[in-house]
């Protein structure tokens, strides 16, 4: 490009970068300006003004004429806003937005910027300055004014706007008539002297030199060379001639008031005069017209506008509908009417776009091209990045450290100084981690970078759709890796557009639904569990799951049976299926061939997951979970056979280990697929070995790997189910059961080898279980791409270099699901049945209070709060060792201390000074459990998984506060260590089997039922169990007089504890039976109600000692 000749790239780069920066904020600033309306925030307007100004300045320097011109026009408009001549209404702001968009586009493609057609923008901006000037000033931007001498000769023409602007700045306008020969040459000056002098005190608006007065070379040298200057200055008339160094009569004050408002006659007159053959004064063909300067219509031809753009067309069409029909060229524009909603058109509509409509005008269709803009300019690929200086400093320091450590290491290696080598190794390790972190920081950018543009999108789109939508943005400051932020742009835009387009209803519909007319969209980013969550929620009409499901079936994407088996949530999630669009008619806005499936694909690429929550009539929330960075991700290592694979932690919801003996009860067959029953949900399972075509193996207790028997039973597989081709269901259970090594005595710990390890993973919006052979550590890995020959394998997301230098493959959880042809549970009535059964059970989950603590900073544990006496903070130094046991002086006695690792296979307590002692009262004494902070109390509906992590001292596990939490069995723990403390209780046992009683235990939770049954059985009684009151009632009748006591839960499905108790107490035959109610949380109200129906005693579920004592008490009483 010639225009860029001689300018070094760096300077231009700087200008481009700076311009982008200026432009990046403008959108929101303008929207804020629009919001403020007439109540102008000058700082803000000034900021935008300055941005336009510096764009213009730089463009001038680089001779980028189009950018300069457009920036200049923006500047003019902003200047008028600043001076409160123009109230920033949506129309004005819209035009500015469009113009700045264009500027951004030109900056992004700077070399071609001069080829851009900006006339449309110029016209609309100039139109703005026109239409909002007082009526008589309208059209001044394009209208030219003749400047004439006192003798009536026109010497030049100048833009009326320039005149008016100069006037507004408080300048005087002068027409100075120099004779360069007599006034300049003769007094020993040069023209440059004159011009420099003038430029020092004002601005030359226009000038002209009388070319014809000179003649040609053939003529004698002229003794006259007239030079006329239209000059704007603050110099007052009485000083003018002196300052300009000319005689008084050569200076003429130009009075702007002489600019007449347009009138029909004059314009007609003007038009007539146009027709008169002009007498040439200059070679440009300017014409001498009249003595009086007056507006002309001529400029119309100068700024020729082709309404090619949609904006211009749409605008024109609005105008045609709303404004009076355009006048023919020769007629004058109408005189402004005070009540008119549309400003009068100063020029015929046929030749130039009319000025913009007044604020009251209906929302212009012009908004749709505006809404289109965000995707039209190709997103500039940033080649440079701004980095916080502090981060850079850190990097420098770390680099220094690194060099230092290397030198020390080399030295130590030379000396063969093992100790120093070790120290250096540790140091290097630390520095590397820090360096990695710091480098990652440089890639972190606030998400506000893309959030901010949504103000504009929502505004434009809602206007185009005639909706009223507020957008609330929170969490702009949340930082993410720059690649992720870039990749988020499209999917988020789509989601936000959808929220406006399909989510939020029109104002009438909202009013009818009893909502406020203005819809709200919340865009929110926040951190959660090491990830960033972005939520786009609207209070619109929600997504109709049935409609989505029907569409999916109609389009042949799913069968009716499949859909039938789905939950509403799963149905809603179907909108992300390729080929399904929920919009009934394709609108302008969203019908662009991009569906939700593309959104999902894009997010998948970023390691993101989408979750949709929607309630009909209430609104929808799209929740996108994203990793902070893509380059390094935490992964769980698993293995199949001898090969290790990495599974991105983000995909892993939980780890389930199913003991061989439990496989049968935990794994169901639905249709022909294996499913895992997990807290009332059915989760399809897939064997990783099968997916990878590897033989299944299992590891025995000595760590020896055996081929799995099931493989040999392959012939019996049903061929039409490739998913489970490696093992038919029955075989699996059989093998699992037989494969279990015999348990050893009372040891409740299990060898994990033959158990089933299941990773519950989420792929997109769908959960499944991935069966692996072994679980290993969680590691942070650097993701590397696979070569072209392997790219097509959807099983893998990439590869990584492991700690030992070998290569490990990273599994693609979503890809595996697709390959396994898993959709959310293939429909069958059994699935539905199981699901509803499970869901019913779910509802009656007890609310339980837990004390949360950590055994190790990474290991969260919980004990039922009711069992806890006190929690004390102590220093490690306070612990005394007495006879190999830890004790603490507590309330005047030596309290024995335990740690979880004393009995359970957990990490040992960290070696630190601040500890926590959780004090329990059991076996008639205080005992303390050592733990570390943080300690917290939660009240939660627990779903305790008794099979995972089950071992001595641990009752089971649950997810509390999004962490896997081990529920501590404090009785089991203490009893294992000090069985003698409990001898007392054993003495109370019934001496003979005859004395043992049969007790009916009614409890819906498997976990509590098993626990309680164990306690009571250990105490020597026979226990009959029932899942709910109804079952209990039937059992009671069946067992007749056998049952001596009833222990019942309160909250249960079908028949709750109150009802059961009432039935028992009211019954002639059973009325005498003592009923002990067990609850997790006994509120006073409940206690009162229980007593009212006849509950004899309330006990807390896991308070073993008291419950047993209570049972003994009632039984003895009976006897």
């Amino acid at each position, binding site marked *: 490009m010639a225009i860029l000749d001689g300018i070094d790239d760096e300077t231009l780069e700087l200008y481009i970068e700076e311009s982008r920066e200026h432009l990046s904020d403008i959108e929101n600033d303008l929207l804020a300006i629009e919001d403020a309306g007439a109540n102008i925030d000058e700082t803000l307007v000034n900021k935008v003004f300055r941005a336009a100004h510096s764009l213009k300045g730089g463009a001038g320097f680089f001779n980028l004429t189009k950018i300069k011109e457009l920036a200049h026009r923006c500047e003019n408009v902003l200047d008028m806003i600043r001076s409160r001549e123009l109230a920033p209404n949506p129309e004005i702001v819209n035009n500015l937005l469009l113009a700045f968009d264009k500027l951004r586009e030109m900056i992004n493609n700077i070399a071609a910027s001069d080829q851009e057609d900006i006339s449309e923008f110029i016209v609309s901006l100039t139109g703005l300055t026109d239409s909002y000037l007082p009526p008589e000033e309208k059209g001044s931007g394009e209208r030219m004014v003749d400047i004439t001498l006192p003798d009536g000769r026109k010497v030049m023409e100048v833009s009326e706007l320039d005149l008016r602007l100069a006037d507004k700045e408080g300048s005087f306008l002068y027409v100075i008539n120099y004779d360069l020969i007599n006034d300049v040459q003769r007094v020993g000056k040069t023209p440059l002297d004159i011009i420099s002098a003038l430029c020092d005190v004002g601005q030359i608006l226009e000038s002209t030199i009388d070319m014809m007065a000179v003649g040609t070379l053939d003529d004698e040298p002229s003794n006259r060379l007239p030079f006329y200057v239209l000059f704007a200055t603050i110099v007052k008339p009485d000083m003018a001639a002196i300052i300009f160094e000319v005689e008084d009569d050569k200076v003429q004050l130009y009075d702007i008031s002489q600019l007449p408002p347009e009138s029909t006659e004059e314009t007609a007159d003007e038009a007539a005069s146009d027709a008169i053959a002009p007498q040439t004064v200059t*070679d440009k063909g300017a014409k001498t017209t009249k003595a009086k300067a007056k507006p002309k219509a001529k400029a119309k031809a100068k700024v020729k506008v082709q309404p090619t753009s949609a904006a211009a067309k749409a605008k024109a069409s609005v105008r045609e509908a709303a404004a009076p029909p355009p006048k023919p060229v020769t007629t004058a524009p109408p005189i402004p009417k005070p009540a008119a909603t549309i400003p009068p058109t100063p020029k015929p509509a046929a030749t130039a776009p009319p000025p913009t409509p007044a604020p009251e005008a209906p929302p212009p269709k012009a908004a749709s091209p505006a809404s289109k803009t965000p995707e039209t300019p190709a997103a500039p690929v940033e080649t440079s990045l701004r980095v916080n200086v502090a981060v850079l400093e850190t990097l420098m320091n770390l680099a220094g450290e690194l060099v230092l450590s290397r030198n020390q290491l080399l030295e130590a290696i030379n000396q063969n100084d093992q100790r120093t080598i070790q120290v250096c190794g540790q140091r290097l390790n630390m520095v590397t981690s820090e360096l990695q972190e710091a480098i990652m920081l440089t890639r972190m950018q606030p998400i506000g970078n893309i959030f901010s543009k949504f103000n504009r999108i929502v505004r434009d789109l809602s206007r185009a759709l005639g909706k009223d939508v507020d957008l609330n943005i929170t969490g702009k400051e949340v930082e993410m890796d720059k690649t992720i932020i870039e990749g988020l742009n499209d999917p988020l835009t789509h989601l936000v557009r959808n929220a406006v387009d399909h989510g939020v209803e029109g104002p009438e519909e909202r009013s009818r639904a009893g909502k406020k007319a203005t819809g709200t969209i919340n865009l929110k980013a926040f951190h959660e569990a090491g990830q960033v969550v972005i939520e786009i929620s609207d209070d619109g009409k929600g997504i109709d799951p049935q409609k989505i499901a029907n569409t999916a079936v109609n389009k042949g994407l799913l069968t009716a049976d499949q859909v039938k088996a789905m939950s509403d949530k799963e149905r809603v999630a179907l909108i992300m299926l390729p080929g399904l669009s929920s919009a009934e008619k394709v609108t302008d806005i969203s019908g662009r061939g991009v569906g939700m499936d593309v959104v999902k694909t894009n997010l998948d690429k970023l390691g993101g997951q989408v979750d949709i929550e929607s309630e009909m009539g209430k609104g929808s929330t799209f929740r996108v979970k994203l990793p902070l960075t893509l380059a390094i991700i935490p992964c769980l290592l698993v293995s199949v056979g001898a090969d290790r694979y990495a599974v991105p932690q983000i995909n892993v919801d939980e780890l389930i280990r199913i003991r061989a003996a439990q496989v049968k009860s935990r794994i169901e067959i639905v249709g022909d697929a294996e499913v895992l029953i997990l807290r009332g949900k059915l989760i399809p399972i897939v064997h990783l070995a099968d997916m990878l075509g590897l033989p299944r193996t299992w590891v025995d207790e000595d760590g020896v790997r055996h081929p799995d028997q099931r493989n040999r039973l392959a012939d019996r597989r049903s061929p039409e189910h490739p998913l489970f081709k490696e093992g038919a269901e029955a075989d699996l259970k059989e093998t699992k059961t037989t494969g279990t090594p015999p348990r050893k005595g009372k040891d409740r710990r299990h060898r994990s080898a033959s158990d089933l390890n299941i990773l519950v993973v989420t792929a997109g919006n769908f959960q499944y279980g991935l069966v692996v052979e072994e679980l290993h550590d969680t590691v942070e890995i650097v993701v590397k791409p696979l070569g072209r020959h392997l790219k097509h394998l959807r099983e893998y997301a990439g590869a990584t270099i492991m700690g030992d230098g070998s290569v490990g493959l990273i599994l693609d959880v979503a890809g595996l699901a697709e390959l396994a042809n898993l959709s959310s549970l293939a429909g069958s009535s059994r699935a539905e049945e199981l699901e509803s059964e499970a869901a019913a059970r779910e509802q009656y989950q007890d609310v339980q209070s837990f004390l949360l603590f950590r055994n190790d900073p990474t290991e969260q544990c919980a004990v039922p709060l009711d069992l806890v006496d006190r929690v004390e903070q102590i220093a490690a130094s306070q612990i005394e060792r007495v006879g190999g046991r830890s004790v603490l002086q507590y309330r005047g006695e030596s309290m024995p201390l335990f740690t979880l690792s004393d009995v359970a296979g957990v990490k040992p307590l960290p070696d630190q000074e601040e500890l926590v002692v959780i004090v329990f009262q059991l076996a008639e004494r205080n005992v303390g459990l050592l733990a570390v902070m943080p300690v917290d109390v939660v009240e939660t509906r627990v779903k305790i998984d008794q099979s995972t992590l089950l071992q001595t001292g641990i009752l089971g596990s649950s997810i509390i506060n999004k962490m896997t939490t081990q529920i501590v069995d404090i009785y089991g723990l203490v009893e294992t260590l000090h069985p003698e403390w409990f001898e007392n209780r054993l003495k109370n046992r019934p001496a003979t089997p005859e004395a043992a009683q049969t007790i009916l235990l009614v409890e819906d939770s498997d976990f509590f039922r098993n626990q309680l049954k164990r306690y009571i059985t250990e105490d020597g009684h026979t226990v009959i169990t029932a899942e709910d009151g109804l079952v209990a009632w039937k059992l009671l009748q069946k067992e007749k007089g056998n049952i001596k006591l009833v222990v019942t839960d309160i909250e249960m499905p079908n028949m709750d504890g109150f009802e059961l108790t009432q039935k028992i107490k009211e019954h002639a035959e059973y009325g005498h039976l003592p009923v002990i109610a067990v609850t997790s949380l006994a509120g006073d109200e409940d206690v009162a109600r229980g007593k009212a129906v006849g509950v004899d005693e309330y006990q807390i579920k896991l308070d073993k000692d008291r419950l047993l004592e209570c049972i003994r008490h009632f039984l003895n009483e009976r006897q």
Partner: protein
Amino acid sequence: MTDISREGNQVVLTPQQDIVASVSAEIRKLLKEQIDQGCKELVLDMQHVEMIDSMGIGLLIAAHNSLNKNGGELKAINLSQDLMSLFKNMRLDKHFSVEGA
């Protein structure tokens, strides 16, 4: 005092000093000769010109007018920043082509 080079129809005049009243007659003569000889494109290389006075301006305009009459054109090149500003402020750039250094 003024270098002349010819290339086809184009003649480049390179005055070696300022274009001011004292030399205007001489330059005027040179210009006229070139135009009379049928030069259609007259280029004034201003690389050595620091100043142009009113007479000089008049001269340039006259040259322009002459050329214009014959269907030729005047070009001023290598203008210093000052001269560029002068030409632009006088709107001479609207009449003939001017190029900065």
